[in-house]
Protein backbone atom coordinates (compact mmCIF):
# COMPACT_ATOMS: atom_id res chain seq x y z
CA UNK A 1 0.00 0.00 0.00
CA UNK A 2 2.75 2.47 0.83
CA UNK A 3 5.36 1.11 -1.56
CA UNK A 4 5.16 4.09 -3.93
CA UNK A 5 5.75 6.51 -1.10
CA UNK A 6 8.69 4.46 0.19
CA UNK A 7 10.23 4.58 -3.27
CA UNK A 8 9.93 8.34 -3.33
CA UNK A 9 11.52 8.60 0.08
CA UNK A 10 14.54 6.61 -1.12
CA UNK A 11 14.89 8.83 -4.19
CA UNK A 12 15.02 11.97 -2.08
CA UNK A 13 17.31 10.40 0.51
CA UNK A 14 20.33 10.48 -1.76
CA UNK A 15 19.93 14.00 -3.12
CA UNK A 16 22.01 16.92 -1.94
CA UNK A 17 20.29 19.31 0.47
CA UNK A 18 18.71 22.50 -0.77
CA UNK A 19 20.38 24.89 1.63
CA UNK A 20 22.41 27.85 0.41
CA UNK A 21 25.49 28.16 2.63
CA UNK A 22 25.87 31.90 2.89
CA UNK A 23 28.37 33.46 3.76
CA UNK A 24 30.74 30.57 4.29
CA UNK A 25 30.74 28.82 0.94
CA UNK A 26 28.56 30.75 -1.51
CA UNK A 27 27.75 34.30 -2.51
CA UNK A 28 24.40 35.83 -1.80
CA UNK A 29 21.69 35.72 -4.46
CA UNK A 30 21.44 39.12 -6.12
CA UNK A 31 19.77 39.95 -9.43
CA UNK A 32 19.90 43.02 -11.62
CA UNK A 33 16.88 44.56 -9.88
CA UNK A 34 17.42 43.92 -6.17
CA UNK A 35 16.84 47.14 -4.27
CA UNK A 36 18.81 47.89 -1.13
CA UNK A 37 21.11 50.70 0.05
CA UNK A 38 20.83 54.16 -1.54
CA UNK A 39 23.50 56.52 -2.90
CA UNK A 40 22.96 60.29 -2.70
CA UNK A 41 24.57 62.60 -5.27
CA UNK A 42 25.06 65.78 -3.27
CA UNK A 43 25.93 67.96 -6.24
CA UNK A 44 22.47 67.34 -7.76
CA UNK A 45 20.26 67.66 -4.67
CA UNK A 46 18.29 70.91 -4.33
CA UNK A 47 16.73 70.35 -0.90
CA UNK A 48 13.09 70.28 -2.06
CA UNK A 49 12.08 67.53 0.48
CA UNK A 50 9.97 65.63 -2.08
CA UNK A 51 11.59 62.40 -0.88
CA UNK A 52 10.58 63.05 2.72
CA UNK A 53 6.97 63.64 1.69
CA UNK A 54 6.91 60.45 -0.38
CA UNK A 55 8.22 58.00 2.20
CA UNK A 56 5.45 55.79 3.66
CA UNK A 57 7.50 54.65 6.64
CA UNK A 58 8.72 58.07 7.80
CA UNK A 59 12.36 57.09 7.42
CA UNK A 60 13.86 60.23 5.80
CA UNK A 61 14.98 63.23 7.86
CA UNK A 62 16.66 66.37 6.52
CA UNK A 63 20.01 67.50 7.97
CA UNK A 64 21.72 70.86 7.72
CA UNK A 65 25.16 70.55 6.10
CA UNK A 66 27.63 73.33 5.44
CA UNK A 67 29.60 73.16 2.24
CA UNK A 68 29.96 74.37 -1.30
CA UNK A 69 26.83 73.11 -3.05
CA UNK A 70 25.60 75.82 -5.42
CA UNK A 71 22.31 74.11 -6.33
CA UNK A 72 21.11 73.75 -2.76
CA UNK A 73 20.27 77.15 -1.28
CA UNK A 74 18.50 75.84 1.82
CA UNK A 75 21.52 73.63 2.62
CA UNK A 76 19.46 70.64 3.70
CA UNK A 77 20.09 67.05 2.57
CA UNK A 78 18.22 63.78 3.27
CA UNK A 79 19.42 61.11 5.66
CA UNK A 80 17.82 57.66 5.83
CA UNK A 81 17.05 55.54 8.89
CA UNK A 82 17.50 51.96 7.72
CA UNK A 83 15.68 50.44 10.65
CA UNK A 84 12.47 51.93 9.23
CA UNK A 85 13.01 51.82 5.47
CA UNK A 86 10.95 49.29 3.49
CA UNK A 87 12.98 49.56 0.24
CA UNK A 88 9.91 50.42 -1.80
CA UNK A 89 11.63 52.94 -4.10
CA UNK A 90 9.04 55.72 -3.88
CA UNK A 91 11.70 58.25 -2.85
CA UNK A 92 13.66 57.54 -6.04
CA UNK A 93 10.49 58.02 -8.10
CA UNK A 94 9.67 61.30 -6.35
CA UNK A 95 13.03 63.06 -6.74
CA UNK A 96 12.75 65.57 -9.64
CA UNK A 97 16.50 65.83 -10.33
CA UNK A 98 17.39 62.11 -9.81
CA UNK A 99 19.77 62.69 -6.96
CA UNK A 100 18.88 59.43 -5.13
CA UNK A 101 19.54 56.02 -6.66
CA UNK A 102 19.31 52.52 -5.23
CA UNK A 103 22.00 49.87 -5.51
CA UNK A 104 22.08 46.16 -4.93
CA UNK A 105 24.36 46.23 -1.89
CA UNK A 106 21.91 44.17 0.10
CA UNK A 107 20.86 43.66 3.63
CA UNK A 108 22.69 40.38 3.83
CA UNK A 109 25.83 42.47 3.93
CA UNK A 110 24.23 45.09 6.12
CA UNK A 111 23.21 42.77 8.97
CA UNK A 112 24.87 44.01 12.09
CA UNK A 113 24.94 43.53 15.82
CA UNK A 114 24.91 47.23 16.67
CA UNK A 115 21.75 49.23 16.04
CA UNK A 116 23.59 52.55 15.98
CA UNK A 117 25.04 51.76 12.57
CA UNK A 118 21.62 51.82 10.88
CA UNK A 119 21.16 55.60 10.86
CA UNK A 120 22.86 57.10 7.80
CA UNK A 121 23.63 60.82 7.48
CA UNK A 122 23.84 62.42 4.01
CA UNK A 123 27.63 62.28 3.90
CA UNK A 124 27.57 58.58 4.71
CA UNK A 125 25.00 58.06 1.95
CA UNK A 126 27.13 59.97 -0.54
CA UNK A 127 30.01 57.52 -0.24
CA UNK A 128 29.49 54.53 -2.57
CA UNK A 129 29.56 51.14 -0.82
CA UNK A 130 32.82 49.28 -0.58
CA UNK A 131 31.90 45.84 -1.90
CA UNK A 132 30.59 44.82 -5.30
CA UNK A 133 27.31 46.42 -6.24
CA UNK A 134 25.19 47.40 -9.25
CA UNK A 135 23.06 50.49 -9.58
CA UNK A 136 19.60 49.01 -9.95
CA UNK A 137 17.01 51.80 -9.72
CA UNK A 138 17.46 55.28 -11.15
CA UNK A 139 15.02 57.80 -12.41
CA UNK A 140 16.49 58.88 -15.70
CA UNK A 141 16.13 55.47 -17.33
CA UNK A 142 12.33 55.65 -17.47
CA UNK A 143 9.59 58.25 -17.61
CA UNK A 144 6.22 56.77 -18.52
CA UNK A 145 3.74 58.70 -20.69
CA UNK A 146 0.87 60.55 -18.95
CA UNK A 147 -2.45 58.75 -18.57
CA UNK A 148 -5.41 59.34 -20.91
CA UNK A 149 -7.80 60.61 -18.24
CA UNK A 150 -11.50 61.09 -19.11
CA UNK A 151 -12.71 64.64 -19.72
CA UNK A 152 -14.07 66.52 -16.70
CA UNK A 153 -17.83 67.00 -16.47
Amino acid at each position, binding site marked *: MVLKQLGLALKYLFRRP*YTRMFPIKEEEYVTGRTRARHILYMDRCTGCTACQMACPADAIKMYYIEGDYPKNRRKIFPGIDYSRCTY*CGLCVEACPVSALVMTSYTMQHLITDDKKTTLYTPEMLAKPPRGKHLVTLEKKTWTPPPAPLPKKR
Partner: protein
Amino acid sequence: MNKTVTVFLGPQHPGAPGNVSFKVVLDGEQVIDIDLIPGFLHRGFEKMMEYRRWDMDLVMSARICVEDPDHVELTYTHAVEQIFGIEPPEKAKYIRVIVAEFSRIASHLLWLMHFAGPIAARYAVGWAIAAREEVLKWFDYITGHRIYHHYIFPGGVRWNIPSDFKEKTLKVLKTIEPLVKDIEVGFFKHPVFQKRAMGLGRLKPTEAIRLGATGPTLRGSGICHDLRKTLGYDAYTELEFKIPRGEYGDAYDRAMIRINEIYESMNIIRQALEKMPMDGPYRWRLPMVMPEGEGIGRVESARGEFVAHIINYRGNQIGRRSLAPYRIKFRGPTMPLLTTILKYIVKNEDITIADLPVLIGSFDPCPPDIDR
Protein backbone atom coordinates in the same frame (compact mmCIF):
# COMPACT_ATOMS: atom_id res chain seq x y z
CA MET B 1 -22.75 17.15 37.04
CA ASN B 2 -21.13 19.45 34.58
CA LYS B 3 -18.44 17.55 32.73
CA THR B 4 -17.39 20.09 30.08
CA VAL B 5 -13.92 21.64 30.06
CA THR B 6 -13.02 24.94 28.38
CA VAL B 7 -9.60 25.07 26.72
CA PHE B 8 -7.81 28.08 25.25
CA LEU B 9 -6.08 26.98 22.04
CA GLY B 10 -3.79 29.96 22.06
CA PRO B 11 -1.77 31.91 19.57
CA GLN B 12 1.48 30.04 20.20
CA HIS B 13 0.02 26.58 19.70
CA PRO B 14 1.62 24.55 16.89
CA GLY B 15 -1.79 23.34 15.76
CA ALA B 16 -3.30 26.81 15.42
CA PRO B 17 -3.22 28.21 11.90
CA GLY B 18 -1.43 31.45 12.72
CA ASN B 19 -1.79 34.16 15.30
CA VAL B 20 -5.37 33.56 16.34
CA SER B 21 -6.74 31.70 19.30
CA PHE B 22 -9.85 29.61 19.82
CA LYS B 23 -11.94 28.94 22.89
CA VAL B 24 -12.88 25.26 22.68
CA VAL B 25 -15.51 23.59 24.90
CA LEU B 26 -14.78 19.90 25.31
CA ASP B 27 -16.70 16.95 26.65
CA GLY B 28 -14.15 14.16 27.01
CA GLU B 29 -12.51 14.35 23.59
CA GLN B 30 -15.44 15.65 21.62
CA VAL B 31 -15.68 19.30 20.67
CA ILE B 32 -19.03 20.90 21.54
CA ASP B 33 -18.50 24.57 20.77
CA ILE B 34 -15.77 26.77 19.34
CA ASP B 35 -15.27 30.55 19.38
CA LEU B 36 -12.72 32.69 17.62
CA ILE B 37 -10.66 35.28 19.52
CA PRO B 38 -8.88 37.58 17.04
CA GLY B 39 -6.94 40.76 17.66
CA PHE B 40 -3.35 39.63 18.03
CA LEU B 41 -2.45 40.98 14.59
CA HIS B 42 -4.38 44.24 14.57
CA ARG B 43 -2.12 46.95 13.21
CA GLY B 44 -4.70 49.60 12.40
CA PHE B 45 -4.33 49.74 8.61
CA GLU B 46 -7.58 51.50 7.88
CA LYS B 47 -6.73 54.45 10.09
CA MET B 48 -3.09 54.58 8.98
CA MET B 49 -4.12 54.77 5.35
CA GLU B 50 -6.07 57.94 6.01
CA TYR B 51 -2.85 59.82 6.76
CA ARG B 52 -0.97 58.95 3.56
CA ARG B 53 -1.28 59.58 -0.19
CA TRP B 54 -2.69 56.97 -2.56
CA ASP B 55 0.66 55.66 -3.82
CA MET B 56 2.05 55.35 -0.29
CA ASP B 57 -1.10 53.40 0.58
CA LEU B 58 -0.24 50.74 -2.00
CA VAL B 59 2.97 49.99 -0.11
CA MET B 60 0.93 49.55 3.05
CA SER B 61 -1.86 47.50 1.52
CA ALA B 62 0.51 44.73 0.45
CA ARG B 63 1.28 43.97 4.06
CA ILE B 64 -2.28 43.05 4.96
CA CYS B 65 -2.03 39.44 3.79
CA VAL B 66 1.29 37.78 4.38
CA GLU B 67 0.95 34.71 2.23
CA ASP B 68 -0.64 36.20 -0.87
CA PRO B 69 0.22 39.90 -1.18
CA ASP B 70 -0.15 40.44 -4.92
CA HIS B 71 -3.89 39.96 -4.95
CA VAL B 72 -4.35 42.63 -2.28
CA GLU B 73 -2.33 45.05 -4.42
CA LEU B 74 -4.45 44.06 -7.40
CA THR B 75 -7.75 44.77 -5.69
CA TYR B 76 -6.51 48.12 -4.38
CA THR B 77 -5.32 48.97 -7.90
CA HIS B 78 -8.69 48.15 -9.44
CA ALA B 79 -10.50 50.41 -6.99
CA VAL B 80 -8.12 53.36 -7.57
CA GLU B 81 -8.37 52.94 -11.34
CA GLN B 82 -12.16 53.06 -11.13
CA ILE B 83 -11.97 56.39 -9.30
CA PHE B 84 -9.61 57.87 -11.89
CA GLY B 85 -11.65 56.36 -14.72
CA ILE B 86 -8.85 54.74 -16.78
CA GLU B 87 -7.95 51.30 -18.04
CA PRO B 88 -4.41 49.92 -17.98
CA PRO B 89 -2.58 49.23 -21.26
CA GLU B 90 -2.72 45.77 -22.90
CA LYS B 91 0.78 44.66 -22.08
CA ALA B 92 0.30 45.51 -18.41
CA LYS B 93 -2.80 43.31 -18.17
CA TYR B 94 -0.89 40.21 -19.24
CA ILE B 95 2.04 40.92 -16.93
CA ARG B 96 -0.40 41.37 -14.03
CA VAL B 97 -1.96 37.98 -14.78
CA ILE B 98 1.42 36.24 -14.78
CA VAL B 99 2.54 37.85 -11.50
CA ALA B 100 -0.79 37.09 -9.81
CA GLU B 101 -0.73 33.43 -10.87
CA PHE B 102 2.79 32.96 -9.56
CA SER B 103 1.65 34.46 -6.28
CA ARG B 104 -1.18 31.93 -6.17
CA ILE B 105 1.29 29.06 -6.69
CA ALA B 106 3.53 30.37 -3.90
CA SER B 107 0.54 30.73 -1.58
CA HIS B 108 -0.63 27.16 -2.16
CA LEU B 109 2.86 25.82 -1.53
CA LEU B 110 2.98 27.72 1.74
CA TRP B 111 -0.44 26.28 2.61
CA LEU B 112 1.11 22.83 2.33
CA MET B 113 3.65 23.80 4.95
CA HIS B 114 0.95 24.91 7.38
CA PHE B 115 -1.21 21.89 6.66
CA ALA B 116 1.23 18.99 6.53
CA GLY B 117 3.41 20.14 9.41
CA PRO B 118 0.96 19.79 12.33
CA ILE B 119 -0.24 16.37 11.18
CA ALA B 120 3.31 14.96 11.28
CA ALA B 121 4.06 14.75 7.55
CA ARG B 122 7.29 16.74 7.66
CA TYR B 123 8.65 15.33 4.41
CA ALA B 124 6.08 17.16 2.32
CA VAL B 125 7.01 20.42 4.05
CA GLY B 126 10.59 20.26 2.79
CA TRP B 127 9.58 19.53 -0.80
CA ALA B 128 7.03 22.34 -0.85
CA ILE B 129 9.46 24.91 0.52
CA ALA B 130 12.10 23.88 -2.01
CA ALA B 131 9.62 24.48 -4.83
CA ARG B 132 8.56 27.81 -3.34
CA GLU B 133 12.18 28.96 -3.19
CA GLU B 134 12.40 28.80 -6.97
CA VAL B 135 9.29 30.99 -7.27
CA LEU B 136 10.71 33.55 -4.84
CA LYS B 137 13.93 33.73 -6.87
CA TRP B 138 11.84 34.46 -9.95
CA PHE B 139 10.09 37.29 -8.11
CA ASP B 140 13.50 38.71 -7.17
CA TYR B 141 14.51 38.63 -10.83
CA ILE B 142 11.42 40.53 -12.05
CA THR B 143 10.47 42.92 -9.28
CA GLY B 144 13.45 43.22 -6.98
CA HIS B 145 11.97 41.74 -3.81
CA ARG B 146 11.01 38.28 -2.67
CA ILE B 147 7.76 38.63 -0.78
CA TYR B 148 6.25 42.13 -0.87
CA HIS B 149 6.74 43.33 -4.41
CA HIS B 150 4.93 46.70 -4.93
CA TYR B 151 5.01 45.91 -8.64
CA ILE B 152 1.33 46.10 -9.59
CA PHE B 153 0.67 49.84 -9.51
CA PRO B 154 -2.36 51.95 -10.50
CA GLY B 155 -1.79 52.74 -14.16
CA GLY B 156 -0.10 49.50 -15.18
CA VAL B 157 2.99 47.80 -13.78
CA ARG B 158 5.89 49.70 -12.35
CA TRP B 159 8.83 48.69 -14.60
CA ASN B 160 9.29 46.95 -17.89
CA ILE B 161 10.11 43.25 -18.15
CA PRO B 162 13.67 42.22 -19.00
CA SER B 163 14.59 40.81 -22.39
CA ASP B 164 14.93 37.12 -21.45
CA PHE B 165 11.57 36.96 -19.69
CA LYS B 166 10.05 34.05 -21.61
CA GLU B 167 12.98 31.65 -21.33
CA LYS B 168 13.50 32.29 -17.64
CA THR B 169 9.82 31.85 -16.79
CA LEU B 170 9.51 28.58 -18.71
CA LYS B 171 12.64 27.29 -17.00
CA VAL B 172 11.17 28.02 -13.55
CA LEU B 173 7.99 26.15 -14.46
CA LYS B 174 9.99 23.18 -15.67
CA THR B 175 11.87 23.04 -12.36
CA ILE B 176 8.77 23.16 -10.18
CA GLU B 177 6.63 20.64 -11.98
CA PRO B 178 8.36 17.37 -10.91
CA LEU B 179 8.36 18.53 -7.29
CA VAL B 180 4.61 19.16 -7.34
CA LYS B 181 3.97 15.77 -8.93
CA ASP B 182 6.03 14.11 -6.23
CA ILE B 183 4.05 15.90 -3.55
CA GLU B 184 0.80 14.71 -5.07
CA VAL B 185 1.89 11.07 -5.14
CA GLY B 186 3.76 11.12 -1.87
CA PHE B 187 1.32 13.01 0.35
CA PHE B 188 -2.14 13.17 -1.16
CA LYS B 189 -2.35 9.55 -2.24
CA HIS B 190 -0.94 8.28 1.05
CA PRO B 191 -3.47 5.93 2.71
CA VAL B 192 -2.95 7.36 6.21
CA PHE B 193 -3.81 10.89 5.07
CA GLN B 194 -6.81 9.66 3.10
CA LYS B 195 -8.16 7.90 6.15
CA ARG B 196 -7.77 11.04 8.24
CA ALA B 197 -9.32 13.50 5.84
CA MET B 198 -12.07 11.71 3.95
CA GLY B 199 -15.55 12.33 5.26
CA LEU B 200 -14.50 15.08 7.65
CA GLY B 201 -16.35 18.37 7.78
CA ARG B 202 -18.96 17.88 5.07
CA LEU B 203 -20.54 21.06 3.76
CA LYS B 204 -23.67 20.87 1.67
CA PRO B 205 -23.89 23.36 -1.23
CA THR B 206 -26.86 25.39 0.02
CA GLU B 207 -25.34 25.75 3.46
CA ALA B 208 -21.98 26.79 2.03
CA ILE B 209 -23.59 29.65 0.10
CA ARG B 210 -25.69 30.74 3.05
CA LEU B 211 -22.77 30.95 5.45
CA GLY B 212 -20.67 33.09 3.15
CA ALA B 213 -18.00 30.75 1.76
CA THR B 214 -16.03 31.73 -1.32
CA GLY B 215 -13.00 30.30 -3.07
CA PRO B 216 -11.84 26.68 -2.79
CA THR B 217 -14.22 26.03 0.14
CA LEU B 218 -17.23 26.78 -2.05
CA ARG B 219 -15.85 24.86 -5.01
CA GLY B 220 -15.20 21.83 -2.83
CA SER B 221 -18.96 21.48 -2.34
CA GLY B 222 -19.59 21.29 -6.05
CA ILE B 223 -20.52 24.84 -7.02
CA CYS B 224 -18.61 26.19 -9.98
CA HIS B 225 -18.06 29.83 -9.07
CA ASP B 226 -14.77 31.59 -9.76
CA LEU B 227 -14.49 35.36 -10.12
CA ARG B 228 -11.86 35.01 -12.81
CA LYS B 229 -14.49 33.48 -15.09
CA THR B 230 -17.73 35.13 -13.96
CA LEU B 231 -16.55 38.73 -13.59
CA GLY B 232 -13.58 38.61 -15.95
CA TYR B 233 -11.02 41.29 -15.12
CA ASP B 234 -7.59 42.06 -16.63
CA ALA B 235 -6.60 39.55 -19.30
CA TYR B 236 -8.56 36.54 -18.01
CA THR B 237 -11.28 37.09 -20.61
CA GLU B 238 -8.92 35.99 -23.37
CA LEU B 239 -7.41 32.91 -21.74
CA GLU B 240 -8.90 29.43 -21.52
CA PHE B 241 -8.66 27.45 -18.34
CA LYS B 242 -10.70 24.92 -16.35
CA ILE B 243 -11.94 25.35 -12.81
CA PRO B 244 -11.30 22.34 -10.56
CA ARG B 245 -14.12 21.42 -8.20
CA GLY B 246 -14.99 18.66 -5.78
CA GLU B 247 -18.00 16.44 -5.16
CA TYR B 248 -18.55 15.67 -1.51
CA GLY B 249 -17.44 18.82 0.24
CA ASP B 250 -15.20 17.15 2.80
CA ALA B 251 -11.68 18.05 3.83
CA TYR B 252 -10.07 15.74 1.27
CA ASP B 253 -11.84 17.43 -1.65
CA ARG B 254 -10.87 20.87 -0.43
CA ALA B 255 -7.24 19.80 -0.23
CA MET B 256 -7.20 18.16 -3.66
CA ILE B 257 -8.62 21.27 -5.32
CA ARG B 258 -5.53 23.25 -4.38
CA ILE B 259 -3.08 20.88 -6.02
CA ASN B 260 -5.18 20.92 -9.19
CA GLU B 261 -5.21 24.71 -9.05
CA ILE B 262 -1.41 24.75 -9.12
CA TYR B 263 -1.49 22.78 -12.39
CA GLU B 264 -4.11 25.11 -13.86
CA SER B 265 -2.05 28.17 -12.89
CA MET B 266 0.94 26.80 -14.74
CA ASN B 267 -1.30 26.32 -17.76
CA ILE B 268 -2.52 29.93 -17.56
CA ILE B 269 1.04 31.26 -17.35
CA ARG B 270 2.12 29.33 -20.44
CA GLN B 271 -0.84 30.67 -22.43
CA ALA B 272 -0.30 34.24 -21.28
CA LEU B 273 3.36 34.09 -22.33
CA GLU B 274 2.29 33.16 -25.87
CA LYS B 275 -0.37 35.81 -26.24
CA MET B 276 1.39 38.76 -24.62
CA PRO B 277 2.10 41.77 -26.90
CA MET B 278 5.75 42.69 -26.75
CA ASP B 279 5.53 46.35 -27.80
CA GLY B 280 3.56 49.18 -26.39
CA PRO B 281 3.41 51.11 -23.14
CA TYR B 282 3.47 49.30 -19.83
CA ARG B 283 2.43 52.16 -17.52
CA TRP B 284 0.45 55.36 -17.55
CA ARG B 285 1.54 58.10 -15.17
CA LEU B 286 -1.31 59.30 -12.94
CA PRO B 287 -1.51 62.69 -11.17
CA MET B 288 -0.97 62.91 -7.44
CA VAL B 289 -4.38 64.43 -6.70
CA MET B 290 -7.22 61.88 -6.72
CA PRO B 291 -10.67 63.13 -7.87
CA GLU B 292 -13.87 62.59 -5.89
CA GLY B 293 -15.58 59.27 -6.38
CA GLU B 294 -16.00 55.71 -5.23
CA GLY B 295 -14.53 52.41 -6.35
CA ILE B 296 -15.07 48.74 -5.44
CA GLY B 297 -12.43 46.21 -6.44
CA ARG B 298 -13.04 42.45 -6.26
CA VAL B 299 -10.55 39.74 -7.15
CA GLU B 300 -10.26 36.00 -6.65
CA SER B 301 -7.32 35.52 -4.33
CA ALA B 302 -5.89 32.16 -3.29
CA ARG B 303 -8.41 31.85 -0.48
CA GLY B 304 -11.55 33.46 -1.81
CA GLU B 305 -13.02 36.82 -2.65
CA PHE B 306 -11.05 39.89 -1.60
CA VAL B 307 -12.92 43.20 -1.69
CA ALA B 308 -11.61 46.78 -1.36
CA HIS B 309 -13.99 49.74 -1.10
CA ILE B 310 -12.41 53.19 -1.49
CA ILE B 311 -14.24 56.50 -1.12
CA ASN B 312 -12.82 59.94 -1.79
CA TYR B 313 -14.58 63.11 -0.65
CA ARG B 314 -13.33 66.65 -0.27
CA GLY B 315 -15.62 68.24 2.25
CA ASN B 316 -14.59 70.01 5.41
CA GLN B 317 -12.13 67.57 6.98
CA ILE B 318 -11.00 67.68 10.57
CA GLY B 319 -7.23 67.31 10.93
CA ARG B 320 -6.07 65.22 8.00
CA ARG B 321 -3.91 65.69 4.93
CA SER B 322 -5.92 66.82 1.96
CA LEU B 323 -4.26 64.41 -0.47
CA ALA B 324 -5.15 61.21 1.37
CA PRO B 325 -8.21 59.08 0.48
CA TYR B 326 -11.21 59.59 2.73
CA ARG B 327 -12.07 56.01 3.71
CA ILE B 328 -10.66 52.62 2.72
CA LYS B 329 -12.22 49.34 3.78
CA PHE B 330 -10.92 45.85 3.09
CA ARG B 331 -12.74 42.61 3.62
CA GLY B 332 -10.62 39.50 3.54
CA PRO B 333 -11.84 36.00 2.68
CA THR B 334 -10.97 34.40 6.02
CA MET B 335 -13.66 36.04 8.13
CA PRO B 336 -16.57 33.76 7.18
CA LEU B 337 -14.34 30.67 7.18
CA LEU B 338 -13.26 30.79 10.78
CA THR B 339 -16.41 32.22 12.34
CA THR B 340 -19.69 31.09 10.80
CA ILE B 341 -18.65 27.94 8.93
CA LEU B 342 -16.52 26.46 11.70
CA LYS B 343 -19.27 26.93 14.27
CA TYR B 344 -21.81 25.30 11.98
CA ILE B 345 -19.66 22.24 11.31
CA VAL B 346 -18.78 21.73 14.97
CA LYS B 347 -22.40 21.85 16.00
CA ASN B 348 -23.66 19.39 13.38
CA GLU B 349 -21.00 16.71 13.30
CA ASP B 350 -18.86 14.65 15.70
CA ILE B 351 -15.47 16.31 15.75
CA THR B 352 -12.76 15.23 18.17
CA ILE B 353 -9.90 17.44 19.16
CA ALA B 354 -7.47 15.42 17.04
CA ASP B 355 -9.47 16.35 13.94
CA LEU B 356 -9.17 20.08 14.50
CA PRO B 357 -5.81 20.68 12.71
CA VAL B 358 -6.97 18.81 9.60
CA LEU B 359 -10.33 20.58 9.59
CA ILE B 360 -9.01 24.11 10.13
CA GLY B 361 -6.11 23.52 7.78
CA SER B 362 -8.39 22.44 4.96
CA PHE B 363 -10.01 25.89 4.94
CA ASP B 364 -6.59 27.58 4.51
CA PRO B 365 -7.11 30.51 6.87
CA CYS B 366 -4.93 33.60 6.77
CA PRO B 367 -5.35 35.33 10.13
CA PRO B 368 -3.95 38.77 9.16
CA ASP B 369 -6.93 39.54 7.01
CA ILE B 370 -9.45 39.19 9.83
CA ASP B 371 -7.74 41.79 12.00
CA ARG B 372 -5.99 43.92 9.38
